[in-house]
């Protein structure tokens, strides 16, 4: 009896099984080679010892890591209230820009100006201008909080990008869907709300996931106007210990959040590509 019959496989399955095993072995060996080279070669660099001490200091890391995690809660907080606001404002801007009725013409202009301005200015500049500018008006507490105005700066900037993605999503719904919905007697508004938007939003979920990841990172920009979030906290420890390891710790914390999120967004993207085909 041939070998593949004994293993309960067809000839082709056996062949593919062997091929897979071979590729796995080759991939494993080459990965080990690369890692080993790095481990042996990098420490040979002349400045390695200094770098190791000031960037990868285990003692500093264990001391600061819990506090950094604590500070990361501030990032999460700012993220948590900004993200829904961005989704809502972004959608409203997108709809305003596609408004057809002449009464809504000012809204269209406003939407266009809004996206042009906030996509055209670096985020950090918007954060500075709004975060320092508005509290500078001498507002009473709590209205002078940098949390509020910093978040607003993020919300405005990100809404501009998110709005453009929603618009692309609306455009991606085939016009025949609109015809079909109109032919049933639905109004333009109902067509948008019941037929176009649900499909448009579903089409742009992966892209919007990427915006969320970018937002999570950009929350750190608020550190420049006051809030002690993780980046600022890491800076404090850097000065305290005269050591850069807290920054590496902060980077690790970001990666713990962003890598799974990025993977998930990529997975959604790939699945969508498959469905389109």
């Amino acid at each position: 009896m041939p070998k593949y019959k004994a293993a309960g496989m067809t000839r082709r399955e056996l062949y593919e099984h062997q091929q897979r095993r071979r590729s796995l072995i080759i991939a494993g060996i080459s990965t080990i080679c690369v890692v080993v080279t790095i481990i042996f070669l990098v420490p040979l660099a002349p400045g390695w010892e200094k770098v190791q001490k000031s960037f990868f200091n285990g003692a500093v890391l264990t001391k600061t890591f819990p506090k950094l995690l604590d500070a990361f809660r501030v990032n999460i907080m700012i993220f948590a209230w900004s993200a829904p606001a961005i989704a809502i404002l972004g959608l409203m801007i997108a709809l305003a820009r596609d408004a057809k009725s002449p009464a809504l013409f000012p809204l269209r202009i406003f939407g266009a100006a809004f996206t042009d301005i906030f996509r055209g200015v670096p985020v950090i500049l918007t954060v500075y201008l709004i975060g320092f500018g508005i509290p500078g008006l001498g507002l009473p507490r709590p209205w002078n909080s940098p949390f509020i105005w910093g978040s607003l700066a993020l919300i405005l900037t990100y809404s501009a990008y998110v709005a453009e993605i929603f618009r692309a999503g609306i455009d991606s719904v085939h016009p025949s869907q609109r015809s079909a919905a109109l032919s049933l007697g639905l109004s333009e508004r109902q067509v948008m709300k019941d037929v176009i938007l649900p499909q448009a939003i579903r089409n742009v979920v992966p892209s919007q996931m990427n915006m969320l990841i970018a937002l999570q990172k950009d929350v750190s920009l608020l550190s420049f106007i006051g809030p002690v979030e993780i980046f600022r906290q890491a800076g404090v420890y850097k000065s305290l210990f005269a050591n850069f390891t807290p920054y590496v710790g902060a980077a690790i914390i970001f990666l713990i959040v962003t890598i799974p999120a990025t993977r998930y967004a990529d997975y959604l993207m790939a699945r969508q590509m498959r469905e389109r085909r």
Partner: protein
Amino acid sequence: MLKLELRNVVKRFGENTVCNGISLGVEQGQMVCLIGASGAGKSTVLRCINLLEPIEDGEIFLDEEDISIPGLNPQNVRSKIGMVFQNFNLFPHMTAFENAILAPKRIRGLSKVDLNAEIEMLFERFELTERMHNYPDQLSGGQQQRVAIVRALAMKPEVMLFDEITSALDPQLVGEVLDVLLQLKAQGMTMVLATHEMQFARQAADKICFLKDGKVVEEGTAKEIFNTPKQAETKAFLERALK
């Protein structure tokens, strides 16, 4: 009295005159078939009747009422005229049942219980009960098209427009959809079809209009058109269409 009437309808897309003075009368309960080569303007005529396309000139009457007055709110007209498309155009994010109930729920203002019962009856009438809660991509082409017909019927239209509704179907699925048309005809529905199904038009149509270059070249009963066409163009088209 005509249920539906087109008088000298002109429709242009830019420089391209797609309907060049089309006149057409449809009586209550009649099935009228529009035939003609690709690009003759059949789909455009149907889209104009449903006010999906504004017309440049001429008038369209429903129950002797001009529905083509510029600026008229098209919603009322559209809910009286159902339309079914070549590519089904079901809403992919809704089940068959949700597709059918959406417009009546928004517009007809019935109680939920009454409406649910009514839509369920429709699905039953067209033998789709088992498929009622499937999404469009879980249905065969024939089933999707029948759901699209049910969706249009759910608005209780007085006239139905069908735009080559069997053209996107595998040959073995065409029959089930054409049967639905016969069923509707038997129930007295007024219908206008754009079709390439010559045998079906020959058997079922009360009236046939041959369109060419945005004009009605010839119209008559199926017998007149198929057996004794008067125009040379009609003859030429039918010879090609019937192989």
